[in-house]
């Protein structure tokens, strides 16, 4: 089975796009990150306003604004806090194309149902329904149980949260000099056309992943793969002078070369 939920979207140009849904784990982590940042910002707002009001309260404010000045101070403080809380998600999701600092950190993004970036209206709707989703964690259940992982805010605003595609870039593969030399020989005594593209995918996989493998596993896997290749291309014995790793590298190189 696939590890991630996928969703196919039709754009207005009737192009079909496939996205990987963000997943409950990333969304929970992103939310916690955002709340930490938001909590910190609220703390700063309160501190700054306390300092300002302490300065103003030196009778000066009362002289100018009259005796209700104290209420004003508290009122403005609450207003600033509410603006920070409500504005945080709307601001970032609108101007960062569906990302907040937490979402950016966890590489997810809000997009509209037709694959386009979300605008102010959708961001505002999502933010407006956020308290509802957080009431008894309703949103969590909605994300867990709905097919497209939508909380109420997503349903209302017509948005989905997907993994950010930019993270997938094809990594570089380093191949040893020895393999480049052996590659020339290999073509002469082995018929590599018996290998299917799928096999090369696996060999490439191995070459990319080998640095993370434990030494013991690496030796075992490379030998296994080399023996399997050997069987497929009817090689009688594996070349004795090179390691299984180098052998696989040169098979990979041979596949990359143009065959015409």
């Amino acid at each position, binding site marked *: 089975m696939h590890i991630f939920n996928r969703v196919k979207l039709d754009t207005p140009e009737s192009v079909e796009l496939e996205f990987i849904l963000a997943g409950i*784990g990333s969304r929970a982590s992103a939310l916690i990150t955002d709340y930490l940042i938001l909590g910190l910002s609220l703390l700063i707002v309160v501190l700054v306003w306390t300092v300002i009001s302490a300065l103003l309260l030196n009778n000066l404010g009362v002289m100018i604004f009259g005796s209700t000045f104290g209420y004003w101070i508290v009122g403005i403080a609450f207003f600033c806090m509410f603006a920070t809380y409500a504005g945080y998600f709307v601001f970032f999701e609108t101007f960062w194309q569906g990302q907040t600092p937490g979402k950016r950190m966890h590489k997810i993004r809000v997009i509209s149902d037709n694959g386009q970036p979300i605008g102010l209206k959708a961001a505002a709707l999502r933010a407006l329904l956020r308290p509802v989703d957080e009431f008894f964690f309703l949103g969590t259940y909605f994300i*867990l149980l709905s097919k497209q992982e939508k909380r109420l805010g997503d349903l209302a605003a017509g948005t989905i949260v997907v993994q950010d595609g930019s993270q997938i870039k094809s990594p570089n593969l380093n191949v040893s000099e020895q393999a480049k030399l052996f590659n020339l020989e290999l073509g002469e005594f082995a018929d590599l056309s018996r290998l299917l593209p799928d096999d090369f995918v*696996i*060999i490439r996989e191995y070459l990319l992943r080998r640095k993370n493998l*434990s030494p013991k596993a690496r030796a075992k896997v490379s030998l296994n793969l080399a023996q399997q*290749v050997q069987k497929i291309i009817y090689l009688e014995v594996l070349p004795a002078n090179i390691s299984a790793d180098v052998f696989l590298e040169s098979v990979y190189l041979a596949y990359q070369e143009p065959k015409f």
Partner: protein
Amino acid sequence: MRDYEYSGSTQPLSASDIVSAGAKLYRSHLKEYFLLALKAYAWAFVPVYGWAKTIALFTLISRLAFGELVNQPESIKSGQRFVYSRKWRFLLVYLYLFLAEIAVFSLLLIIGYVVFSVFKEQIPILVIFSIIAIIAFIIAYILIALRLYLVEMPLAIEENITPIKSISRSWELTKGSTRQIFLVLVTSSLILMPIQILVSFINSILRVVIISVLQNNSSSAIAISSFLSILVSFLINALIVPFLQTTQAVVYYELRSRCEGLGLQLRDHEI
């Protein structure tokens, strides 16, 4: 038989992705896994023999989930036969860990006793020693627990394995991944929090309703409400445990792929 979707990306799964995958696995087999967990809890009432079955059934959920991950799904029946045949070994794993824990605790107690009797008079030294010792103990305990996170998984999946080997396999696989496992556990408990809050909410409502229906605070009312709250927590635990098990299976799958190249195999030409 391979998961090309995953094989296609060389990027290791993040902790969040592991949790999402665990949730997804559970969601797609909600009823089966929930019933297995219920059955496991029922066996827990039978001492020793039942406990072995409880552990075996919990691990069966991980085994089934792992089967889904490597695209070799197994029927519950055959999986159950497999884990039941190893049930005593599962119990032994926990017995060994329990004994090791007792041994370590006694050793620490002896060290503490010696230190305290040597520095009997110097209170500041004792205070500083205690604080450092407690902090070091908590950190070490968590680190060791993280390394033992996969303790039953090898026994549920791999061939030629003994309880001791299963423990050392967990130690080996989790090497260098404690931070990630810690994040997985934190994230999954975050997701479980709503459910736990819901449970305590239901429990308190039940209590209020029962007491108001019976019109008094008599012992029978208290007995009924505590019986019901035990029942509710059993059901909820049976609902939660499969999620923890499927997440464990994803961690095991991820570590085996990353550290041991699981799935790196060419097609079988003999067949």
